[in-house]
């Protein structure tokens, strides 16, 4: 039997090979003056007052706040150069920066500020999560460069919340409509020049920017949803910069880049806290001895070194000491399994002969440890915690579910231990503490069983509206000390951001996890 074909096979193979070779792709690198970055999705229409699909880092490139948040909770002037607060803490008068124009040439003045507040306050329900929006009674134009903000209560975090990326930033009045902005026109250093759906967004420098001009002329943000593909894109020179948490780059890839010296790597200071909330409203964690024993039983150093690749420092308290009002010198719960066992013995949780799980009054010492099932890191940490607890006779049952189901558990308190991060700057500590009073938060659920819960909530209510700095410090000390002593949290590590760059100088970290300081970056010589 003779079939034709061998020749044909050869031809096809040759054509395929030729196609592969002539496609020859030299390591790209960005054109001069362009920084190529990547993000999981397009940046959205960029409306300063709206949420998803607007991406926060990009909103911050185009729109600016009245004041800026700096490391340690320091507030510095931005579009407002000065402000005075009335003695009763209810009236804020802002003096606006002179000579600022929107990128379409219209001036930034008191009328523009008021127009933006009007749009915001017309839809208060949308911003219900932010206490400031609920607190605003009125916004008045005093003169072209002066604006007065009147509040219902003397709400102290007002300036902190004015510094947020959204929703209190300013678009040109010419583009404001009741249905959002017609086009992204802000006062910021960048303008959104082009969006190609699913492929990239292009930002160009705002020629009329009032502040220092960024060194880069253009920023291209490529859409790369998958962190592994992003790492490959960096390695092959398709992008110059990876910036952010584990959603942007996995610890594996980051460690590989760092050890092999591929590009420059950097890790930020603590930005938020990775913790487990311990449910005081449910047995057996309603027993303070059990919560303290759990805190002493977990070997955080081992978790930080082995599972977090040393990228996140060990956490001893709910908030890192680099946040406002949080450097309190609380005594950490050190890793001390013997002490944990002693605490449990004293509380009547004893090991039956030949058993591995402690029992009290016929009840085994068993807790549900809930985590996001497809989050490899949470799973690994949960397993390590489980092993640590097992060593002192606590049976931790692992419950791995999808993110949405875990959130539902946080809301209704169906957990023994559950993962939860604090919100980071500038929300920590005030917004986070504020949320502890709301029943739908893991924190409320975790604290529900504390005998002094009502007292804690009252102090939280007071700390947000006190105008006396010393009193505020004392209240925070009380709240955070009580929570620490009651051991309703198992702080594990402080979350950090990571950056990998090539050919870029000045890559640093901002005070907030959501803002990327592109302005300080410049092409390496």
């Amino acid at each position, binding site marked *: 039997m*003779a079939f034709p*074909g061998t020749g044909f096979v050869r031809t*096809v193979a040759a054509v395929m090979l030729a196609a592969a070779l002539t*496609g020859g792709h030299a390591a790209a690198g960005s054109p001069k003056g362009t920084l190529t970055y990547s993000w999981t999705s397009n940046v959205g229409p960029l409306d300063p007052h709206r949420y998803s699909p607007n991406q926060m880092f990009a909103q911050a490139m185009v729109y600016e706040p009245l004041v800026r948040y700096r490391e340690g909770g320091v507030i510095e002037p931005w579009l407002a150069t000065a402000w005075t607060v009335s003695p009763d803490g209810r009236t804020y008068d802002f003096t606006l920066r002179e000579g600022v124009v929107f990128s379409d040439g219209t001036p930034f003045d008191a009328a523009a500020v008021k127009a933006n507040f009007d749009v915001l306050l017309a839809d208060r329900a949308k911003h219900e999560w932010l206490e400031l929006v609920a607190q605003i009674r009125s916004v008045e134009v005093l003169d072209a460069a002066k604006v007065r903000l009147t509040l219902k209560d003397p709400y102290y975090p007002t300036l902190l919340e004015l510094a947020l990326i959204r929703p209190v930033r300013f678009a040109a009045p010419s583009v404001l409509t009741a249905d959002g902005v017609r086009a992204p026109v802000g006062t910021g250093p960048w303008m959104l020049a082009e969006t190609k*759906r699913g492929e990239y967004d292009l930002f160009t420098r705002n020629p009329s920017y009032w502040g220092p001009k960024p060194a880069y002329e253009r920023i291209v943000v490529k859409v790369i949803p998958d962190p592994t593909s992003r790492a490959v894109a960096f390695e092959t020179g398709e992008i110059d910069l990876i910036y952010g948490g584990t959603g942007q780059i996995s610890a594996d890839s980051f460690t590989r880049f760092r050890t092999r010296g591929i590009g420059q790597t950097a890790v930020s200071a603590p930005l938020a806290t990775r913790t487990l909330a311990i449910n005081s409203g449910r047995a057996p964690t309603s027993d303070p001895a059990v919560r303290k024993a759990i805190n002493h039983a977990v070997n955080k150093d081992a978790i930080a070194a082995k599972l977090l690749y040393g990228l996140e420092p060990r956490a001893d308290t709910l908030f890192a000491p680099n946040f406002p009002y949080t450097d309190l010198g609380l005594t950490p719960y050190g890793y001390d399994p013997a002490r944990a066992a002693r605490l449990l013995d004293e509380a009547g949780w004893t090991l039956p002969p030949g058993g591995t799980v402690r029992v009290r009054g016929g009840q085994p010492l068993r807790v549900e440890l809930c985590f996001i099932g497809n989050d490899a890191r949470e799973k690994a940490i949960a397993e390590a915690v489980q092993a640590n607890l097992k060593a002192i006779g606590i049976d931790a049952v692992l419950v791995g579910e999808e993110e949405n189901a875990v*959130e539902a558990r946080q809301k209704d308190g169906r957990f023994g231990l559950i993962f939860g991060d604090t919100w980071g700057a500038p929300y920590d500590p005030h917004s986070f503490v504020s949320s502890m009073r709301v029943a739908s*938060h893991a924190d409320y659920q975790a604290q529900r069983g504390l005998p002094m819960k009502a007292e804690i909530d009252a102090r939280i209510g007071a700390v947000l509206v006190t105008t006396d700095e010393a009193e505020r410090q004392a209240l925070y000390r009380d709240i955070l000390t009580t929570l620490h002593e009651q051991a309703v949290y198992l702080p594990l590590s402080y979350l950090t951001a990571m950056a990998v760059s090539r050919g870029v100088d000045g890559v640093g970290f901002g005070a907030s996890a959501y803002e990327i300081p592109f302005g300080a970056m410049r092409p390496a010589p």
Partner: protein
Amino acid sequence: MLRFIAGRLLTLPPLLLAVSAGVFLLLRLGRGDPALDYLRLSNIPPTDAAVAAAQRLLGLDRPLAEQYLSWLWQALHLDFGLSYVTRRPVLDDLLYYLPATLQLGAAALAVTLAVSLPLGMWAARHRDRLPDHLVRALAFVGVSIPNFWLGFLLVLLFAVTLNWLPPLGRGGWSHMVMPVAAVALMSLCINARLLRASMLETAGQRHVLYARLRGLPERRIVHSHILRNALLPIVTATGMHIGELLGGTLVIENIFGWPGVGRYAVSAIYNRDYPVLQCFTLLMTVIFVTCNLAVDLLYAWLDPRIRPGREAAR
């Protein structure tokens, strides 16, 4: 023939109705609330009030039946609603991304046919000799490698190590080589094996023997008597491969940052973006039905014995 086509097309509307109701219910049977995902993507703490507001915004606060009927009514007017995540019209987004997926799928189909047919013929011609062993080994390996893993291997070799091909994005031909190879390999291997077996079987049949006895030239025997008959199962298989190839692109698009419907749909799954998933499923149903119809027509053209309408005429 026209009646056959019309009849087949008439089954499409009830099928789409059934699929849409099924998908609608399945999505809502799963646990979890899209409002929570919306808040997560918006960085808004999920208080009860915030969840309720998000549910109102997304229209999830209404009874299930009402949600479905209003969706259906709008869908009949080709309005598939707004994506929960991008807040854009879903159909508009899907049609925007579809050409990229069709390009990838069509290229993969072309490569599958262009490579598998000669390989299968080559193997059959050299039965139990080296080429046959090679093809069978390749086929064995090919069907065993998951396409996403192959994708990463290709990237490691051709993008990271050799730096010959761009690792992601859509652009010139060079951007297509790796994703197409990753999508096509499995179908290609199945096809090659199938054609080999089919040709060997046909070659042993009596009409081929008679043709030989009649002294027909070998070339003609192969072309008219073996290949034409042996291709029939390949046509059927190709119809199935189209589904496989489109399914494969869903995964591959994510790895290669290919801006197609697959990537859009996968992120929609992750974010519980119900309107996108409902519209996507319908779109894929239409594509599948159309492809199957095309395959049946091709089949009829190749084999007059099964031509529709023939039976009635007989």
